[in-house]
């Protein structure tokens, strides 16, 4: 039976890589390059003010909230759904955190725990509507977008809830002590090195093409320089902001969930072909419900962080946050059709969005222009992605 399908086993001849191929294969690289270009542009337009350690620290803190939403949104979108309620829900959870803190003096740790669990519970509720009651997620999200904002305004009488306790403010405005920060950075490098080497060994074990050792060394060097540069910038100001640390932790945990757990694998399978997944004996509904629960929890964390950062619970907090999160995912390579997307991509997407906000604000560009520019960039990013796509 060897003659049948002989064509398949045939090895493809090597050919020179074109720039377009490199970009379609290493989308993240292209994205990082685009980010660097944006930074350089703003650095030039603001006479270097954009590139100061202080602004770098601010920029990352700005990124963190969108990134928390985007991390949850990646899973939602990879599974082929969407959640439009997260901006309003962020506001609502931020409001709950503020009320518990200001009116009931609930200790911060307990407060956070309550709000996160509440977030997961409401996310679960959304998930039941989508997965079991089969209402399209677009509609469930739209309903939540209205209802959650309504609850928030009703709960706060449309007024700001302040002043928030300093302990809660720390979650949004505090910094990691420098020594701890440095230790974490070193730890991160060690983990990256181990993971890189192990995956190389594994690929070799399965007789897959492995990059030459010098390339791996170069990659590790790039990691080291990246982390060192990152720490140097942050340490030149006050160190790692707490929200940034949270964001990085989420990045780590979510990436591992995506690649190393059954839950993560199922998310991609469902997005890739829901029917095939269901017929393989997978409880598709349960997985979807849990994805929404996770999304709710992320929105809650983003809500707490927002309240802490503003030092107040604002009835308008998180407005249009869902769109920033979705845009971040899409810029970061998540497919609207499901099945494709990465957590780190979405986080870089969030960084791009925050860079645009931050840079244009520094230049004193009016808000309406900022909105126009962000909209255009989103459109362009997706167009470029389609143009360089491998399966056109």
């Amino acid at each position, binding site marked *: 039976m060897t003659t*049948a399908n002989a064509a398949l086993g045939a090895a493809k001849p090597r050919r020179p890589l074109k720039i377009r191929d490199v970009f379609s294969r290493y989308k993240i690289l292209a994205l990082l390059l685009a980010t660097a270009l944006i930074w350089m542009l703003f650095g030039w337009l603001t006479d270097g003010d954009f590139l100061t350690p202080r602004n770098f620290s601010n920029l990352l803190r700005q990124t963190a909230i969108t990134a928390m939403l985007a991390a949850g949104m990646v899973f939602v979108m990879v599974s082929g759904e969407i959640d439009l309620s997260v901006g309003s829900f962020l506001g609502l959870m931020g409001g709950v955190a503020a009320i518990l803190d200001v009116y009931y003096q609930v200790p911060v740790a307990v407060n956070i725990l309550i709000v996160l669990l509440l977030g997961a519970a409401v996310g679960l509720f959304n998930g039941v509507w989508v997965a079991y009651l089969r209402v399209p997620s677009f509609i469930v999200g739209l309903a939540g977008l209205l209802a959650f904002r309504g609850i928030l305004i009703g709960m706060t009488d449309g007024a700001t809830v302040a002043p928030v306790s300093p302990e809660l403010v720390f979650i949004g405005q505090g910094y990691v002590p420098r020594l701890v920060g440095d230790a974490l950075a070193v730890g991160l490098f060690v983990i990256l090195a181990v993971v890189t080497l192990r995956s190389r060994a594994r690929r070799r074990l399965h007789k*897959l093409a492995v990059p030459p050792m010098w390339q791996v060394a170069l990659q590790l060097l790039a990691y080291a320089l990246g982390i060192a540069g990152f720490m140097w910038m942050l340490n030149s100001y006050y160190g790692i902001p707490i929200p940034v640390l949270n964001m990085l932790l989420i990045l780590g945990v979510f990436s591992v969930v995506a690649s190393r757990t059954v839950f993560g694998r199922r998310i991609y399978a469902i997005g890739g072909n829901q029917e095939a997944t269901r017929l393989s004996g997978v409880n598709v509904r349960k997985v979807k419900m849990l994805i929404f629960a996770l999304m709710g929890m992320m929105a809650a964390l983003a809500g707490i962080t927002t309240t802490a950062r503003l030092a107040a619970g604002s009835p308008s907090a998180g407005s249009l946050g869902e769109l920033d999160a979705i845009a971040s995912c899409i810029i970061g390579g998540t497919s609207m059709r499901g099945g494709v997307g990465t957590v780190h991509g979405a986080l870089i997407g969030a960084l791009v969005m925050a860079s645009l906000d931050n840079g244009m604000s520094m230049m004193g560009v009016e808000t309406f222009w900022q909105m126009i520019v962000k909209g255009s960039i989103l459109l362009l990013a997706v167009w470029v992605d389609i143009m360089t796509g491998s399966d056109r």
Partner: protein
Amino acid sequence: MSEYLLEMRGIVKDFSGVKALDGINLMVRPGEAVGLCGENGAGKSTLMKVLSAVYPYGTWEGTIRWEGRELKARSIRETEEAGIVIIHQELMLIPQLSVAENIMLGREPAGPGGFIDFEALYQRAEALMRELNMPDINVALPVSALGGGHQQLVEIAKALNKNAKLLILDEPSSSLSKTETETLLDIIRGLKARGVACVYISHKLDEVQAVCDTVTVIRDGTLVGSAPMADMTVDRIIAMMVGREMQNLFPRQSHAIGEVVFEARHVTCWDVHNPARKRVDDVSFQLRRGEILGVAGLVGAGRTELASVLFGSYQGRCEAEILLDGQPIRVRSPLDAVRHGICMVPEDRKHQGIVPLMGVGHNITMSVMSRFVRGGFIDEADEMRTVEETVRRIRIKTASPMLPIKSLSGGNQQKAVLSKMLLPRPRVLILDEPTRGVDVGAKYEIYTLIHELAAEGMAIIMISSELPEILGISDRVIVIGEGELRGDFANENLTQETIMTAAIRTDAARRA
């Protein structure tokens, strides 16, 4: 002018260094039917995409002459205007629109102000149906109300409305029943008489033999040969396709048949969209250990619905008593079924079988992920061991188990889907059209595998529209017709005629 309507010469199509087509010639005379044969991946579809300008002029080498002039089409629109119309394996009809609207789609007769002139629309559609000798079809009905054969007919009418001189039919009978196929072949004969040429792509060589004047065989992107059908036999075509003589299409391996393991009683289900209509009506049967049960019937008879009820995946209302080892079990979802040791390989590989962008390995292990979990995480080394073992055992040909499954040929994809449903070690395996869209070589391997599994004691239910396959593989055959059980035969001296008669029996009785 040359005697040929179409002359394709020296066609070479290169996909980033891999030659999918390497110097193919294809000639078609006016009013001639040319059979294009080759295994999956031989390059048939690529050749047709070159012809219909899905790959525009300039992206391939060679020449195409159409009615004596060189054709340099850059879009499907241009080839359609020239009179070359392709009808894809998956029909491109809009189910909610009427037959007439589908036929005239994009060419609706418009009155003043851009309003559709429905009078003219229906008249034109009816005229086309008369030309196709199908005056009974109500062109005002939505397409979804028609059967697969008649839907195919709508596609052909649509092509005729575009003044097609050459029709390309890509596996037109893959979802048609025997009688529907006959209708289709008659239509093609009628078209030939009217001077319309056609290229008939099919794995079903008896159809090619029945309707084609010339046959062209390609293998691995190269031309094997082209000859008048009169000089060819099915055996010879197969030999040319696979590059060797095929001694036996169906392997035979004796296997012991044991006690009853599975029993379905009073399986009944209702249509998802039309709750008044029964799709399966009170079907009961037993299945023994090591037995291969063929399920025959016309397309649309309710075989797939029967299977999906047993597997817990039927979307509409259904009732059934299912017994495993004499104990009643509840199967309300595929998850329940897999837990009880009932697995199913669905009929529609692309939509129900594979997750196209995921790796071959990850597709295979999808059904048994929890087996590889250590402390909450997937032990990828353990998973890979299972994958490699399976790939070797089932002989899935892939350069690496990490490649996306969509890059594999149909036969290998099918073997991967089969592997996925074998990993839970089922006691009862349901195969719905296990060799659809699979080339001859891979078919043989799948048959061999089915026999091996039966020899290991697995009870197998195999639904198939290909009667030779049913007769070649099964120990016992049940026949479903219009949702009812019409026959239960031991496969001894059983003939295609017996099965067909059982499948259409009441139709015949009713007409009489």
